Protein backbone atom coordinates (compact mmCIF):
# COMPACT_ATOMS: atom_id res chain seq x y z
CA UNK A 1 0.00 0.00 0.00
CA UNK A 2 2.87 2.40 0.81
CA UNK A 3 4.34 2.00 -2.67
CA UNK A 4 0.96 2.82 -4.16
CA UNK A 5 0.61 6.03 -2.15
CA UNK A 6 4.14 7.11 -2.95
CA UNK A 7 3.76 6.53 -6.69
CA UNK A 8 0.33 8.19 -6.76
CA UNK A 9 1.56 11.26 -4.86
CA UNK A 10 4.63 11.43 -7.09
CA UNK A 11 2.51 11.15 -10.25
CA UNK A 12 0.03 13.80 -9.20
CA UNK A 13 2.85 16.15 -8.23
CA UNK A 14 4.54 15.51 -11.58
CA UNK A 15 1.34 16.17 -13.57
CA UNK A 16 0.65 19.48 -11.80
CA UNK A 17 4.26 20.56 -12.32
CA UNK A 18 4.22 19.52 -16.00
CA UNK A 19 1.03 21.51 -16.75
CA UNK A 20 2.12 24.75 -15.11
CA UNK A 21 5.71 24.14 -16.22
CA UNK A 22 4.74 24.00 -19.92
CA UNK A 23 3.49 27.60 -19.73
CA UNK A 24 6.57 28.65 -17.73
CA UNK A 25 8.92 27.15 -20.31
CA UNK A 26 7.00 28.74 -23.20
CA UNK A 27 7.17 32.11 -21.44
CA UNK A 28 10.92 31.61 -20.93
CA UNK A 29 10.36 31.86 -17.20
CA UNK A 30 11.46 28.41 -16.03
CA UNK A 31 13.83 29.90 -13.52
CA UNK A 32 10.91 31.60 -11.79
CA UNK A 33 9.89 28.12 -10.58
CA UNK A 34 13.34 27.79 -9.04
CA UNK A 35 12.92 31.18 -7.40
CA UNK A 36 9.44 30.50 -6.07
CA UNK A 37 10.33 27.03 -4.79
CA UNK A 38 13.06 28.52 -2.62
CA UNK A 39 11.16 31.64 -1.65
CA UNK A 40 8.26 29.73 -0.06
CA UNK A 41 10.54 28.39 2.69
CA UNK A 42 9.98 31.23 5.23
CA UNK A 43 6.23 30.87 4.56
CA UNK A 44 6.32 27.16 5.27
CA UNK A 45 8.39 27.62 8.43
CA UNK A 46 6.18 30.42 9.79
CA UNK A 47 3.04 28.47 8.97
CA UNK A 48 4.58 25.47 10.73
CA UNK A 49 5.35 27.57 13.81
CA UNK A 50 1.75 28.80 13.90
CA UNK A 51 -0.14 25.60 13.12
CA UNK A 52 2.33 22.87 14.09
CA UNK A 53 1.91 21.11 10.77
CA UNK A 54 3.76 21.15 7.48
CA UNK A 55 0.76 20.23 5.41
CA UNK A 56 -2.90 21.22 5.25
CA UNK A 57 -4.73 24.17 3.80
CA UNK A 58 -3.52 26.96 6.15
CA UNK A 59 0.07 26.12 5.19
CA UNK A 60 -0.85 25.90 1.52
CA UNK A 61 -2.47 29.34 1.51
CA UNK A 62 0.08 31.02 3.82
CA UNK A 63 3.21 29.75 2.11
CA UNK A 64 1.58 29.99 -1.31
CA UNK A 65 1.07 33.72 -0.83
CA UNK A 66 4.75 34.12 0.07
CA UNK A 67 5.54 32.49 -3.27
CA UNK A 68 3.23 34.90 -5.07
CA UNK A 69 4.76 37.78 -3.09
CA UNK A 70 8.21 36.76 -4.32
CA UNK A 71 7.05 36.99 -7.94
CA UNK A 72 5.67 40.50 -7.19
CA UNK A 73 9.02 41.44 -5.62
CA UNK A 74 10.95 40.15 -8.63
CA UNK A 75 8.77 42.24 -10.99
CA UNK A 76 9.06 45.27 -8.72
CA UNK A 77 12.86 45.11 -8.44
CA UNK A 78 13.13 44.74 -12.20
CA UNK A 79 10.57 47.35 -13.32
CA UNK A 80 10.82 49.97 -10.55
CA UNK A 81 14.24 49.31 -9.06
CA UNK A 82 15.78 48.85 -12.51
CA UNK A 83 17.66 45.74 -11.42
CA UNK A 84 18.43 43.34 -14.30
CA UNK A 85 15.66 40.75 -14.58
CA UNK A 86 17.83 37.70 -13.82
CA UNK A 87 19.61 39.53 -11.02
CA UNK A 88 16.28 40.49 -9.46
CA UNK A 89 15.32 36.79 -9.42
CA UNK A 90 18.66 35.92 -7.80
CA UNK A 91 18.37 38.63 -5.15
CA UNK A 92 14.76 37.94 -4.23
CA UNK A 93 14.73 34.19 -3.80
CA UNK A 94 18.05 33.84 -2.01
CA UNK A 95 16.96 36.56 0.40
CA UNK A 96 13.68 34.82 1.21
CA UNK A 97 15.34 31.39 1.34
CA UNK A 98 17.95 32.75 3.76
CA UNK A 99 15.16 34.13 5.90
CA UNK A 100 13.68 30.63 6.05
CA UNK A 101 17.02 29.02 6.92
CA UNK A 102 17.55 31.56 9.72
CA UNK A 103 14.08 30.81 11.07
CA UNK A 104 14.80 27.07 11.08
CA UNK A 105 18.22 27.39 12.70
CA UNK A 106 17.18 29.84 15.44
CA UNK A 107 14.03 27.98 16.34
CA UNK A 108 16.27 24.92 16.64
CA UNK A 109 14.62 22.06 18.48
CA UNK A 110 11.12 23.46 18.12
CA UNK A 111 10.99 22.63 14.48
CA UNK A 112 10.85 19.27 12.87
CA UNK A 113 12.15 20.50 9.49
CA UNK A 114 15.62 19.50 8.60
CA UNK A 115 17.54 21.47 5.98
CA UNK A 116 18.21 18.35 3.87
CA UNK A 117 14.50 17.70 3.65
CA UNK A 118 13.99 21.29 2.50
CA UNK A 119 16.18 20.74 -0.53
CA UNK A 120 15.03 17.37 -1.77
CA UNK A 121 12.03 16.37 0.33
CA UNK A 122 11.22 12.86 1.46
CA UNK A 123 8.46 11.30 -0.51
CA UNK A 124 9.01 7.99 1.31
CA UNK A 125 7.47 9.55 4.44
CA UNK A 126 4.28 10.54 2.62
CA UNK A 127 2.34 7.42 3.76
CA UNK A 128 3.19 8.21 7.42
CA UNK A 129 1.04 11.31 7.63
CA UNK A 130 -2.43 9.97 6.96
CA UNK A 131 -5.78 11.66 6.99
CA UNK A 132 -9.04 9.74 7.27
CA UNK A 133 -11.98 10.30 4.98
CA UNK A 134 -14.76 7.99 6.17
CA UNK A 135 -12.87 4.79 6.87
CA UNK A 136 -10.22 5.24 4.21
CA UNK A 137 -6.84 6.59 5.23
CA UNK A 138 -5.32 8.92 2.63
CA UNK A 139 -1.93 10.63 2.89
CA UNK A 140 -2.24 14.32 3.84
CA UNK A 141 0.22 15.27 1.06
CA UNK A 142 -1.93 13.52 -1.54
CA UNK A 143 -5.00 15.50 -0.50
CA UNK A 144 -3.31 18.91 -0.75
CA UNK A 145 -1.50 18.01 -3.99
CA UNK A 146 -4.69 16.60 -5.46
CA UNK A 147 -6.65 19.79 -4.72
CA UNK A 148 -3.91 21.95 -6.21
CA UNK A 149 -3.85 19.79 -9.35
CA UNK A 150 -7.63 20.08 -9.62
CA UNK A 151 -7.39 23.89 -9.35
CA UNK A 152 -4.65 24.00 -12.02
CA UNK A 153 -6.69 21.77 -14.33
CA UNK A 154 -9.79 23.94 -13.92
CA UNK A 155 -7.85 27.13 -14.70
CA UNK A 156 -6.17 25.64 -17.78
CA UNK A 157 -9.44 24.13 -18.98
CA UNK A 158 -11.58 27.27 -18.77
CA UNK A 159 -8.90 29.81 -19.69
CA UNK A 160 -6.87 27.84 -22.25
CA UNK A 161 -7.49 30.52 -24.90
CA UNK A 162 -6.46 33.42 -22.63
CA UNK A 163 -3.37 31.64 -21.29
CA UNK A 164 -2.29 30.67 -24.80
CA UNK A 165 -2.66 34.11 -26.37
CA UNK A 166 -1.02 35.98 -23.49
CA UNK A 167 1.89 33.50 -23.64
CA UNK A 168 2.30 33.52 -27.43
CA UNK A 169 1.79 37.21 -28.18
CA UNK A 170 1.32 39.37 -25.07
CA UNK A 171 1.20 42.63 -27.10
CA UNK A 172 -1.60 41.37 -29.30
CA UNK A 173 -3.39 40.00 -26.22
CA UNK A 174 -3.20 43.42 -24.54
CA UNK A 175 -4.34 45.14 -27.73
CA UNK A 176 -7.61 43.20 -27.64
CA UNK A 177 -8.10 43.96 -23.96
CA UNK A 178 -6.81 40.80 -22.27
CA UNK A 179 -5.23 41.56 -18.91
CA UNK A 180 -1.87 39.83 -19.35
CA UNK A 181 -0.60 40.95 -15.93
CA UNK A 182 -3.53 39.22 -14.25
CA UNK A 183 -2.85 35.97 -16.14
CA UNK A 184 0.82 36.20 -15.23
CA UNK A 185 0.00 36.32 -11.54
CA UNK A 186 -2.67 33.62 -11.81
CA UNK A 187 0.00 31.36 -13.30
CA UNK A 188 2.50 32.38 -10.60
CA UNK A 189 -0.15 31.68 -7.95
CA UNK A 190 -0.56 28.17 -9.36
CA UNK A 191 3.19 27.63 -9.40
CA UNK A 192 3.41 28.81 -5.76
CA UNK A 193 0.62 26.49 -4.60
CA UNK A 194 2.09 23.52 -6.49
CA UNK A 195 5.53 24.20 -4.99
CA UNK A 196 4.19 24.37 -1.45
CA UNK A 197 2.08 21.25 -1.88
CA UNK A 198 5.05 19.44 -3.42
CA UNK A 199 7.47 20.63 -0.75
CA UNK A 200 7.20 17.63 1.56
CA UNK A 201 7.35 15.17 -1.26
CA UNK A 202 10.14 16.46 -3.47
CA UNK A 203 11.61 19.58 -1.83
CA UNK A 204 12.78 22.88 -3.30
CA UNK A 205 15.32 21.74 -5.89
CA UNK A 206 13.90 18.54 -7.33
CA UNK A 207 10.56 20.29 -7.97
CA UNK A 208 12.33 22.51 -10.52
CA UNK A 209 13.23 19.38 -12.51
CA UNK A 210 9.56 18.42 -12.63
CA UNK A 211 8.56 21.95 -13.73
CA UNK A 212 11.07 22.19 -16.56
CA UNK A 213 12.26 18.80 -17.85
CA UNK A 214 9.00 17.03 -18.87
CA UNK A 215 7.65 20.14 -20.69
CA UNK A 216 10.99 20.66 -22.45
CA UNK A 217 10.99 17.04 -23.63
CA UNK A 218 7.36 17.29 -24.76
CA UNK A 219 8.02 20.53 -26.67
CA UNK A 220 10.71 18.76 -28.67
CA UNK A 221 8.29 16.05 -29.75
CA UNK A 222 4.97 17.78 -30.39
CA UNK A 223 3.86 20.90 -32.20
CA UNK A 224 0.40 21.34 -30.69
CA UNK A 225 0.02 22.94 -27.30
CA UNK A 226 -2.72 20.57 -26.14
CA UNK A 227 -0.58 17.57 -27.09
CA UNK A 228 2.44 19.11 -25.37
CA UNK A 229 0.45 19.42 -22.12
CA UNK A 230 -0.68 15.78 -22.28
CA UNK A 231 2.75 14.48 -23.29
CA UNK A 232 4.48 16.47 -20.54
CA UNK A 233 2.07 15.04 -17.95
CA UNK A 234 2.72 11.55 -19.28
CA UNK A 235 6.49 12.08 -18.99
CA UNK A 236 5.94 13.26 -15.42
CA UNK A 237 3.99 10.10 -14.53
CA UNK A 238 6.61 7.88 -16.17
CA UNK A 239 9.30 9.65 -14.13
CA UNK A 240 7.30 9.10 -10.92
CA UNK A 241 6.83 5.36 -11.57
CA UNK A 242 10.28 4.62 -12.99
CA UNK A 243 11.91 6.83 -10.36
CA UNK A 244 10.24 4.89 -7.56
CA UNK A 245 11.47 1.50 -8.77
CA UNK A 246 14.92 2.84 -9.63
CA UNK A 247 15.23 4.22 -6.09
CA UNK A 248 14.07 0.95 -4.53
CA UNK A 249 16.57 -0.95 -6.68
CA UNK A 250 19.43 1.41 -5.82
CA UNK A 251 18.18 1.85 -2.26
CA UNK A 252 18.42 5.64 -2.77
CA UNK A 253 16.34 8.81 -2.71
CA UNK A 254 13.03 8.50 -4.58
CA UNK A 255 12.79 12.22 -5.45
CA UNK A 256 16.36 12.15 -6.68
CA UNK A 257 15.66 9.16 -8.92
CA UNK A 258 12.53 10.87 -10.30
CA UNK A 259 14.56 13.93 -11.29
CA UNK A 260 17.21 11.68 -12.82
CA UNK A 261 14.57 10.04 -15.02
CA UNK A 262 13.25 13.45 -16.20
CA UNK A 263 16.76 14.32 -17.34
CA UNK A 264 16.99 11.06 -19.28
CA UNK A 265 13.59 11.85 -20.84
CA UNK A 266 14.93 15.14 -22.19
CA UNK A 267 17.96 13.34 -23.61
CA UNK A 268 15.72 10.76 -25.31
CA UNK A 269 13.49 13.51 -26.69
CA UNK A 270 16.51 15.28 -28.20
CA UNK A 271 17.66 12.03 -29.85
CA UNK A 272 14.15 11.23 -31.17
CA UNK A 273 13.62 14.73 -32.59
CA UNK A 274 17.07 14.57 -34.23
CA UNK A 275 16.30 11.21 -35.83
CA UNK A 276 12.89 12.47 -36.96
CA UNK A 277 14.53 15.50 -38.53
CA UNK A 278 17.12 13.36 -40.34
CA UNK A 279 14.43 10.98 -41.65
CA UNK A 280 12.38 13.96 -42.77
CA UNK A 281 15.18 15.55 -44.75
CA UNK A 282 16.10 12.11 -46.16
CA UNK A 283 12.54 11.63 -47.35
CA UNK A 284 12.59 15.08 -48.90
CA UNK A 285 15.82 14.26 -50.75
CA UNK A 286 14.24 11.06 -52.09
CA UNK A 287 11.24 13.06 -53.27
CA UNK A 288 13.50 15.44 -55.15
CA UNK A 289 15.41 12.56 -56.74
CA UNK A 290 12.19 10.97 -57.96
Amino acid at each position, binding site marked *: MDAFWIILTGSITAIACALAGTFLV*LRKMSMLSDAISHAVLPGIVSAFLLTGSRTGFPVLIGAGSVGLLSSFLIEYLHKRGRVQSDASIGVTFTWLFALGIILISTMGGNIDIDPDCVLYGEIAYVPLDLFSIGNILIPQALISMGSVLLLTLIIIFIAF*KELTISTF*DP*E*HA*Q*SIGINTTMWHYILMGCVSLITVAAFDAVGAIIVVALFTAPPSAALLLSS*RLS*HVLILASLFGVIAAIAGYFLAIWMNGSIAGAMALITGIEVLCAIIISRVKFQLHSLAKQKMIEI
Partner: protein
Amino acid sequence: MLHTSIEIHDLTVSYQNKPVLWGIDCHIPIQQLTALIGPNGAGKSTLLKSMMGLIPIASGFVHFNGKTIDSMRKHISYMPQRESVDWDFPISVKEVVMMGRYSKLGLFKKPREADHLIVQECLRKVEMEKFADRQISRLSGGQQQRVFMARAIAQDTDFYLMDEPFSGVDAATEITLLDVLKQMRDNGKTIIVVHHDVQAVAEHFDNALLLNLRKTAMGSVKEVLTEHNLQQTYGGKLQILSDVGHLLSIEQKKTRLR
Protein backbone atom coordinates in the same frame (compact mmCIF):
# COMPACT_ATOMS: atom_id res chain seq x y z
CA MET B 1 -13.90 66.58 -38.89
CA LEU B 2 -12.72 65.81 -35.38
CA HIS B 3 -15.13 62.95 -34.94
CA THR B 4 -14.25 61.06 -38.06
CA SER B 5 -10.50 60.82 -37.88
CA ILE B 6 -7.71 59.70 -35.67
CA GLU B 7 -6.69 62.71 -33.66
CA ILE B 8 -3.27 62.71 -32.06
CA HIS B 9 -2.90 65.71 -29.81
CA ASP B 10 0.38 66.88 -28.26
CA LEU B 11 1.47 63.27 -27.70
CA THR B 12 4.65 62.87 -25.69
CA VAL B 13 6.04 59.50 -24.65
CA SER B 14 9.21 59.01 -22.68
CA TYR B 15 11.17 55.97 -21.69
CA GLN B 16 13.15 56.29 -18.44
CA ASN B 17 12.90 60.10 -18.59
CA LYS B 18 14.22 60.19 -22.15
CA PRO B 19 11.61 61.39 -24.64
CA VAL B 20 10.93 58.98 -27.49
CA LEU B 21 8.08 60.98 -29.00
CA TRP B 22 7.76 64.71 -28.56
CA GLY B 23 4.59 66.78 -29.00
CA ILE B 24 3.09 64.85 -31.91
CA ASP B 25 0.07 66.69 -33.28
CA CYS B 26 -1.88 65.43 -36.26
CA HIS B 27 -5.10 64.21 -37.78
CA ILE B 28 -5.03 60.97 -39.71
CA PRO B 29 -7.94 60.80 -42.15
CA ILE B 30 -10.14 57.72 -42.06
CA GLN B 31 -10.68 55.24 -44.88
CA GLN B 32 -7.22 55.86 -46.27
CA LEU B 33 -3.84 54.16 -46.34
CA THR B 34 -1.36 56.08 -44.24
CA ALA B 35 2.33 55.19 -44.01
CA LEU B 36 4.46 55.94 -41.00
CA ILE B 37 8.05 56.56 -42.05
CA GLY B 38 11.23 57.60 -40.30
CA PRO B 39 14.71 56.30 -39.46
CA ASN B 40 15.39 53.50 -36.95
CA GLY B 41 14.68 54.65 -33.42
CA ALA B 42 12.46 57.48 -34.63
CA GLY B 43 9.59 56.25 -32.45
CA LYS B 44 7.39 54.66 -35.12
CA SER B 45 6.66 51.49 -33.13
CA THR B 46 6.32 53.57 -29.99
CA LEU B 47 3.69 55.72 -31.67
CA LEU B 48 1.61 52.68 -32.64
CA LYS B 49 1.99 51.15 -29.17
CA SER B 50 1.02 54.35 -27.40
CA MET B 51 -1.98 54.70 -29.71
CA MET B 52 -3.01 51.18 -28.61
CA GLY B 53 -2.50 52.05 -24.94
CA LEU B 54 0.22 49.41 -24.60
CA ILE B 55 2.71 51.87 -23.13
CA PRO B 56 2.03 54.84 -20.85
CA ILE B 57 1.70 58.32 -22.37
CA ALA B 58 3.51 61.21 -20.64
CA SER B 59 1.15 63.84 -21.99
CA GLY B 60 -1.42 64.42 -24.71
CA PHE B 61 -4.05 62.04 -26.05
CA VAL B 62 -5.12 59.91 -28.99
CA HIS B 63 -8.76 59.80 -30.07
CA PHE B 64 -10.31 57.43 -32.57
CA ASN B 65 -13.45 59.07 -33.99
CA GLY B 66 -13.50 61.24 -30.89
CA LYS B 67 -13.23 58.34 -28.41
CA THR B 68 -10.39 56.97 -26.31
CA ILE B 69 -8.69 53.66 -27.07
CA ASP B 70 -10.34 51.83 -24.17
CA SER B 71 -13.83 52.38 -25.52
CA MET B 72 -12.69 51.68 -29.11
CA ARG B 73 -10.58 48.54 -28.55
CA LYS B 74 -13.12 46.31 -30.31
CA HIS B 75 -12.81 48.47 -33.44
CA ILE B 76 -9.03 48.53 -33.73
CA SER B 77 -6.60 45.79 -34.77
CA TYR B 78 -2.93 45.94 -33.90
CA MET B 79 -0.33 43.88 -35.72
CA PRO B 80 2.96 43.78 -33.77
CA GLN B 81 6.36 43.30 -35.37
CA ARG B 82 7.08 39.76 -36.48
CA GLU B 83 10.12 39.56 -34.16
CA SER B 84 7.98 40.20 -31.09
CA VAL B 85 6.87 36.57 -30.79
CA ASP B 86 8.54 33.17 -30.51
CA TRP B 87 7.87 31.36 -33.79
CA ASP B 88 8.79 28.02 -32.20
CA PHE B 89 5.56 28.15 -30.22
CA PRO B 90 3.59 24.87 -30.59
CA ILE B 91 0.67 26.26 -32.55
CA SER B 92 -0.63 25.98 -36.12
CA VAL B 93 -1.19 28.73 -38.70
CA LYS B 94 -4.96 28.31 -38.38
CA GLU B 95 -4.82 28.69 -34.59
CA VAL B 96 -2.81 31.93 -34.81
CA VAL B 97 -5.34 33.45 -37.22
CA MET B 98 -8.16 32.28 -34.93
CA MET B 99 -6.62 34.51 -32.23
CA GLY B 100 -7.89 37.39 -34.35
CA ARG B 101 -11.43 36.24 -33.52
CA TYR B 102 -10.86 36.19 -29.74
CA SER B 103 -11.84 39.81 -29.17
CA LYS B 104 -15.21 39.17 -30.80
CA LEU B 105 -15.65 35.85 -28.98
CA GLY B 106 -15.28 37.17 -25.48
CA LEU B 107 -13.76 35.52 -22.45
CA PHE B 108 -13.89 31.72 -21.98
CA LYS B 109 -15.95 31.11 -25.16
CA LYS B 110 -15.11 28.62 -27.89
CA PRO B 111 -14.95 29.57 -31.61
CA ARG B 112 -18.03 28.71 -33.68
CA GLU B 113 -18.40 27.44 -37.23
CA ALA B 114 -18.69 31.03 -38.55
CA ASP B 115 -15.34 31.91 -36.99
CA HIS B 116 -13.67 28.96 -38.70
CA LEU B 117 -15.06 30.13 -42.04
CA ILE B 118 -13.75 33.65 -41.46
CA VAL B 119 -10.30 32.27 -40.60
CA GLN B 120 -10.32 30.23 -43.82
CA GLU B 121 -11.35 33.28 -45.85
CA CYS B 122 -8.60 35.44 -44.31
CA LEU B 123 -5.98 32.78 -45.07
CA ARG B 124 -7.22 32.70 -48.65
CA LYS B 125 -6.84 36.48 -48.96
CA VAL B 126 -3.15 36.31 -48.06
CA GLU B 127 -2.70 33.13 -50.13
CA MET B 128 -1.88 30.91 -47.17
CA GLU B 129 -4.84 28.50 -47.22
CA LYS B 130 -2.56 25.58 -48.12
CA PHE B 131 -0.59 26.13 -44.93
CA ALA B 132 -3.54 26.22 -42.51
CA ASP B 133 -2.44 23.18 -40.52
CA ARG B 134 1.30 23.83 -40.66
CA GLN B 135 3.17 24.56 -37.45
CA ILE B 136 4.35 28.17 -37.43
CA SER B 137 8.03 27.30 -36.90
CA ARG B 138 8.04 25.80 -40.41
CA LEU B 139 7.20 29.09 -42.15
CA SER B 140 9.48 31.53 -43.95
CA GLY B 141 9.68 35.16 -42.84
CA GLY B 142 7.31 36.30 -45.57
CA GLN B 143 4.81 33.56 -44.68
CA GLN B 144 4.96 34.61 -41.04
CA GLN B 145 4.02 38.16 -42.04
CA ARG B 146 1.12 36.83 -44.13
CA VAL B 147 -0.15 34.87 -41.11
CA PHE B 148 0.07 37.95 -38.90
CA MET B 149 -1.77 39.98 -41.52
CA ALA B 150 -4.47 37.29 -41.80
CA ARG B 151 -4.91 37.46 -38.02
CA ALA B 152 -5.33 41.25 -38.19
CA ILE B 153 -7.88 40.94 -41.01
CA ALA B 154 -9.75 38.26 -39.04
CA GLN B 155 -10.37 40.84 -36.31
CA ASP B 156 -12.64 42.62 -38.82
CA THR B 157 -12.31 46.11 -37.34
CA ASP B 158 -12.53 49.68 -38.69
CA PHE B 159 -8.94 50.64 -37.84
CA TYR B 160 -5.71 48.73 -38.45
CA LEU B 161 -2.33 49.65 -37.00
CA MET B 162 0.47 47.54 -38.50
CA ASP B 163 4.09 47.56 -37.39
CA GLU B 164 6.41 46.78 -40.31
CA PRO B 165 4.24 44.17 -42.05
CA PHE B 166 6.58 44.24 -45.06
CA SER B 167 9.90 43.62 -43.30
CA GLY B 168 11.44 40.35 -44.48
CA VAL B 169 8.96 39.76 -47.31
CA ASP B 170 9.89 39.29 -50.94
CA ALA B 171 8.68 41.59 -53.71
CA ALA B 172 5.88 39.24 -54.85
CA THR B 173 4.50 38.91 -51.32
CA GLU B 174 4.68 42.67 -50.84
CA ILE B 175 2.50 43.21 -53.89
CA THR B 176 -0.01 40.60 -52.72
CA LEU B 177 -0.22 42.15 -49.26
CA LEU B 178 -0.43 45.71 -50.63
CA ASP B 179 -3.34 44.64 -52.82
CA VAL B 180 -5.07 43.19 -49.75
CA LEU B 181 -4.56 46.48 -47.90
CA LYS B 182 -5.85 48.56 -50.82
CA GLN B 183 -8.93 46.35 -51.06
CA MET B 184 -9.56 46.83 -47.36
CA ARG B 185 -9.21 50.59 -47.74
CA ASP B 186 -11.70 50.57 -50.61
CA ASN B 187 -14.08 48.77 -48.24
CA GLY B 188 -13.84 51.67 -45.82
CA LYS B 189 -11.04 50.57 -43.48
CA THR B 190 -8.53 52.98 -42.01
CA ILE B 191 -5.01 51.57 -42.17
CA ILE B 192 -1.77 52.87 -40.70
CA VAL B 193 1.41 51.02 -41.65
CA VAL B 194 5.01 51.44 -40.54
CA HIS B 195 7.03 51.13 -43.73
CA HIS B 196 10.69 51.58 -44.62
CA ASP B 197 10.46 51.75 -48.39
CA VAL B 198 9.84 55.41 -49.29
CA GLN B 199 9.54 54.56 -52.97
CA ALA B 200 6.76 52.03 -52.31
CA VAL B 201 4.99 54.49 -50.02
CA ALA B 202 4.97 57.12 -52.76
CA GLU B 203 3.54 54.60 -55.16
CA HIS B 204 0.89 52.84 -53.10
CA PHE B 205 -0.13 54.94 -50.11
CA ASP B 206 -2.50 57.89 -49.74
CA ASN B 207 -0.80 59.71 -46.88
CA ALA B 208 2.51 59.71 -45.10
CA LEU B 209 3.42 60.73 -41.57
CA LEU B 210 7.13 61.51 -41.35
CA LEU B 211 8.51 61.00 -37.92
CA ASN B 212 11.77 61.49 -36.10
CA LEU B 213 11.10 62.05 -32.41
CA ARG B 214 8.82 64.87 -33.60
CA LYS B 215 6.48 65.01 -36.53
CA THR B 216 8.40 66.38 -39.49
CA ALA B 217 5.54 66.26 -41.99
CA MET B 218 2.07 64.85 -42.47
CA GLY B 219 -0.17 64.92 -45.50
CA SER B 220 -0.84 63.28 -48.82
CA VAL B 221 2.22 61.50 -50.23
CA LYS B 222 2.35 63.91 -53.17
CA GLU B 223 2.71 66.88 -50.84
CA VAL B 224 4.96 65.59 -48.11
CA LEU B 225 7.45 63.24 -49.77
CA THR B 226 9.80 66.01 -50.80
CA GLU B 227 13.57 66.10 -50.67
CA HIS B 228 13.40 68.74 -47.96
CA ASN B 229 11.03 66.74 -45.73
CA LEU B 230 12.96 63.50 -46.16
CA GLN B 231 16.19 65.24 -45.24
CA GLN B 232 14.49 66.77 -42.22
CA THR B 233 13.34 63.31 -41.16
CA TYR B 234 16.45 61.30 -41.89
CA GLY B 235 18.93 64.00 -40.94
CA GLY B 236 20.06 64.52 -44.51
CA LYS B 237 22.95 62.11 -44.06
CA LEU B 238 21.64 59.42 -46.33
CA GLN B 239 22.46 60.35 -49.89
CA ILE B 240 20.20 57.60 -51.21
CA LEU B 241 17.18 59.15 -49.53
CA SER B 242 17.75 62.56 -50.96
CA ASP B 243 18.11 60.80 -54.30
CA VAL B 244 14.72 59.22 -53.77
CA GLY B 245 13.23 62.59 -52.89
CA HIS B 246 14.84 64.11 -55.97
CA LEU B 247 13.53 61.36 -58.25
CA LEU B 248 10.07 61.75 -56.79
CA SER B 249 10.02 65.47 -57.42
CA ILE B 250 11.10 64.93 -61.04
CA GLU B 251 8.34 62.37 -61.52
CA GLN B 252 5.79 64.70 -59.99
CA LYS B 253 6.89 67.52 -62.26
CA LYS B 254 6.54 65.18 -65.21
CA THR B 255 2.99 64.26 -64.28
CA ARG B 256 2.16 67.91 -63.77
CA LEU B 257 3.54 68.76 -67.21
CA ARG B 258 1.43 66.04 -68.73
